[in-house]
C-alpha cells in the first residue's frame, strides 16, 4: 500500500514542480502581494483613532469634552488589556478612560499619539479636571506584519483547493483516473497520495515565502515557529479536504472552477485576509467561523503578533481538525473515479 501511495505522491510532485508557470505563480503571487501592500500601506493610517474605555457600544460625544473633537474616530473598548496592547502596537493613537478623573494611555514613540494627546489636553484645558497619564512603549504593528499571515493563508487556500480539487477533476475528465481504477490502487491510497503531495508542496512553498518575506521585511514574530508551522499544516489539511469535496464527483473543469470560486471568494472576503473583522457585526463574525481560513488566520496572527502558545491556539486547531474530519468523510463517501 505504501509503495503505491509513494508512487502516486512522487508522480504528482513531479508534475507540479515541472509545471514552471504554476510553480512560479505560487511563489511570486504572495511575495508580490506582501511587498506591494507593505509599500502601499505600511505606516499610512490616515485617521486618528482613540479608544474609549467603557461598557456601552457607542461613544457619546457629549460624555466628555474630548469626544466632540473632529477628525478623530472614537472606538469603545471594554477590555483594558486588549486596548493597551493596541496602543503599544500603534493601532490606537490614544486610549482614554473618561473617569472622572480622566485617565489616558499614550505611546511616546507614536507620532500620532503625540498629537492626539495635545488634542485631549486642549479639550480639557478649561475644565480644571485632573488628568492621569500612563505611558506604554512598543513597536508598531505594520500592515505587512498583519497582512503577511493573510496572504500566505490565501495562497494556501488557492493552492489547496485548486491544486487538489481542480487536478482531480482534470484527471477524471481526461481518463487518467479511469486508468488508475484499472490497477490495484484503491481510492483511499489515491486520495492519501494527493493530499500528502499537496501538503508537502504547500508547506514547502509557504515556508519558503514566509522565511524570505520575514527576513526581508523583518516582520513581527512573537511566538514559536513550530506552533506557526503546526497552524499552517492543520489548516492546509482542512482546505485540501474541502477541495476533495468539490472534486469528488464533478466531471467538468468549468463547473469545478465555478464551485471553487464560490468557496474561495466568500472565504477570502470573510476570513480576515485583507482587513480585520473585529468591528463587524456578530452575524458576520459567526459566518466567518464556518471557513477554515478564519481559524488559520486567527491562530497564525495570535502566534506571530501576540506570541500565543500551542495551548492558546488549541481551540482554533481543534476547530480545523473537526472541519477536516467532516470534509474528508463527505469527500470519501461521495468520491467517484469514473466520468459517468
Amino acid at each position, binding site marked *: 500500500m505504501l509503495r503505491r501511495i509513494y508512487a502516486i505522491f512522487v*508522480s*504528482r510532485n513531479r508534475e507540479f514542480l515541472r*509545471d514552471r508557470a504554476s510553480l512560479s505563480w505560487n511563489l511570486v503571487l504572495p511575495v508580490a502581494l506582501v511587498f506591494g501592500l507593505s509599500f502601499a500601506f505600511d505606516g499610512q493610517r490616515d485617521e486618528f483613532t482613540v479608544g474609549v474605555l467603557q461598557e456601552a457600544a457607542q461613544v457619546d460625544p457629549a460624555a466628555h469634552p474630548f469626544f466632540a473633537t473632529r477628525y478623530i474616530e472614537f472606538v469603545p473598548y471594554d477590555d483594558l488589556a486588549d486596548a493597551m496592547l493596541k496602543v503599544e502596537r500603534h493601532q490606537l493613537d490614544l486610549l482614554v478612560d473618561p473617569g472622572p478623573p480622566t485617565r489616558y494611555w499614550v505611546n511616546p514613540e507614536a507620532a500620532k499619539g503625540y498629537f492626539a494627546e495635545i488634542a485631549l489636553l486642549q479639550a480639557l484645558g478649561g475644565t480644571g479636571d485632573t488628568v492621569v497619564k500612563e505611558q506604554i512603549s512598543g513597536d508598531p504593528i505594520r500592515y505587512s506584519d498583519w497582512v503577511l499571515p493573510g496572504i500566505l493563508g490565501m495562497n494556501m487556500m488557492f493552492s489547496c483547493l485548486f491544486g487538489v480539487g481542480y487536478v482531480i477533476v482534470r484527471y477524471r475528465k*481526461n481518463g487518467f483516473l*479511469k*486508468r488508475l481504477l484499472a*490497477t490495484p490502487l484503491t481510492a483511499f491510497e489515491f486520495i492519501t497520495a494527493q493530499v500528502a503531495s499537496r501538503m508537502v508542496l504547500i508547506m514547502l512553498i509557504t515556508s519558503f515565502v514566509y522565511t524570505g518575506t520575514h527576513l526581508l521585511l523583518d516582520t513581527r514574530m512573537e511566538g514559536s515557529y513550530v506552533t506557526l508551522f503546526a497552524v499552517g499544516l492543520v489548516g492546509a489539511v482542512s482546505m485540501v479536504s474541502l477541495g476533495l469535496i468539490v472534486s469528488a464527483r464533478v466531471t467538468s473543469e468549468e463547473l469545478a472552477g465555478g464551485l471553487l470560486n464560490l468557496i474561495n471568494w466568500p472565504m477570502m472576503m470573510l476570513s480576515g485576509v485583507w482587513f480585520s473583522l473585529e468591528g463587524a457585526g456578530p452575524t458576520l463574525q459567526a459566518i466567518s467561523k464556518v471557513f477554515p481560513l478564519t481559524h488559520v488566520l486567527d491562530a497564525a496572527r495570535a502566534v506571530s503578533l501576540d506570541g500565543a502558545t500551542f495551548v492558546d491556539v488549541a481551540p482554533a486547531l481543534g476547530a480545523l481538525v473537526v472541519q477536516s474530519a467532516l470534509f474528508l468523510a463527505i469527500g470519501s463517501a461521495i468520491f467517484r*473515479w469514473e466520468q459517468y
Partner: protein
Amino acid sequence: MVDDPQVALEARGLVKRYPGVLAVDGVSFSVREGTCFGLLGPNGAGKTTTVEMIEGVSRPTSGEVYYYGEIAGARFREESGIQFQNTALQDHITVRETLEMFHALYERRADLEHVIEQCSLGDLLDRDNRKLSGGQRQRLLLAVALVNRPRLVFLDEPTTGLDPQARRNFWTLVQNIRAEGATVVLTTHYMDEAQILCDEIAIMDQGKIVRQGSPEALLFARYGDEMINLPHGEIRRPNLEDLFLDLTGHSLRA
C-alpha cells in the same frame, strides 16, 4: 459459471442501460486461456462499454464477470493489463517515470527493461509524454498495460488513428505478447486486424452479439465455398466485412 480451468474470462448476461439507451443487451461469452478474442463491431455497437464493464471501470446494470472461475475482483486487477481507447497520462512526466509509476502499483511486476525493449521505447525514455507521436504513445500505453506481466490483456481499438506501418508494427507486438502466454481481448473495427490476430471473434451490433466463433468458421458457415463476383469479372473470397453486412445490413465502419 464455466468451471473449465482453461477459461480465463467469462462474461455472463452483461447489460448496461443509460437513461433512454440500452447500450449493451445481455452479452455473454468466454475466452480461453492463451487465445486472442476479438470483439468486432462498428462505432456505437457497445464494444467499449462491454469491455469496460469486464475491466471493472464501469458498473454493469446487471450481469457478472468471472476471472478463472472467480468473480473478477482484486486478483483480476492485479493480473490484468488494460490499454484503453483514450487515456491521458500526466503532463511533465517522462516515459520512464510513467512506466515506473504504474509498475509500482502492482505486486506482480514485469522486468521493466524487458517491457521497454518489447515495446521499442528505449529511445523515448526521457521524453515528456506530451511529445510522443500517435504510434509512440500507443506503444507506451501498451507498455503500461504490460508492467504487471499480465495474464490477461485488454486492447481497446489500439490501432485507431495509426498509419499502416505503425498498425503492422503494433500487430507484431500483440503477437509477441501472445507468444509469451498472455490471453488477449481485442476490440476493433478493423477486419484485417481481427482476422490476423484473433482466434475467435464476437460480432456486436446494437449492443448484442450477433455471431461468435473463429473467423474461418464463421465465414465457412455463412458462405461455404462461395466466391464474390466483383466488377470486371474479378472474384474474391468473402471476408468479415461481407459477413457483417449480410448479418446486420450495414457496414462495419458505419
